[in-house]
């Protein structure tokens, strides 16, 4: 017997926070994502290269930030139930060594489609006070 993990559409309200998380990114997080994703651009692990191309230092992969944000939505939606996710990368996240960069993710209901029983989840993703993703939205199939 199988059991759907999709959230229930009934009772959802626009503006409701459905999930939030704080993540501490270190150089190890970036190396791990590089290996998992196959994105070995040296600006994500080599300070010399990062400074040469005009960055303050090593920055996180935009796709790592997006992946972390999507995981926060998934925690509420259930694995495999996020049918669409989109972001604009507006600001880089420098990741110091030694040390860590803190990223906060808040997932709120942005819109509800009663006919399709889908919820649009709007993501606020910040590094300190700086928003690092724009137009960050996910679509979740509900039951």
């Amino acid at each position, binding site marked *: *017997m*199988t*059991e*759907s*993990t999709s959230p229930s559409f009934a009772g959802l309200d626009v503006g409701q926070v459905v999930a939030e*998380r704080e*993540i501490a990114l270190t150089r190890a*997080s970036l190396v*791990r*994502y590089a*290996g*998992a*994703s*196959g*994105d070995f651009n040296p600006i994500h692990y080599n300070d010399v290269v990062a400074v040469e*191309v*005009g960055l303050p230092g090593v920055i996180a992969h*935009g*796709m*790592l930030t*997006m*992946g*972390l944000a*999507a*995981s926060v*939505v*998934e*925690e509420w939606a*259930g*694995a*495999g139930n*996020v*049918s*669409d*996710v*989109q*972001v*604009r*990368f507006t600001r880089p996240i420098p990741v110091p060594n030694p040390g860590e960069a803190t990223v906060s993710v808040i997932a709120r209901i942005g819109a509800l489609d009663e006919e399709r029983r889908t919820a649009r989840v709007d993501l606020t993703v910040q590094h300190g006070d700086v928003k690092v993703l724009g137009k960050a939205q*996910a679509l979740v199939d509900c039951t």
Partner: protein
Amino acid sequence: MSVNSEAVGRRYGPFEPYEVTRVKIREFADAVDAFSGAHRDVAVAQAEGYADVVAPTTFAVVIAQQAEFHVVTDPEVGVDFSRVVHAEERFTHVRPLVAGDVVRTTVHIDAIKQRAGISMVTTRSELVDLDGAPVSTVVSTLAVRESQDEGETQ
């Protein structure tokens, strides 16, 4: 060097099929803090209605970025990769990828918009299964700064 806007409409692939594996799904789930057991344990995934462990939402980037590589390295498109910044990304799934899936990817150049010394290059990767049924669409926009003239400083 500048991006050739006449490259819009070009298509690359389909490439050698990509086989989605349990180990890769787990690695990716660990890297993006996707904590669900359905990414790691076949029994949990099957209890949730999946044939095998299910990939995290943005896993398809592993496959799409390999395909997009053919665009950014095509000399006739003219992308200087040292001047590239990732601007936008979108995943649209018909269904989630699961371990055991074998997918073929075709990448299209959908748009090249040039303004103020920056070219915005939008690619669309279409992932289909071996029967040709659509699985996921990955749309990616890169911002490419045009090269300065020789001798100019920046």
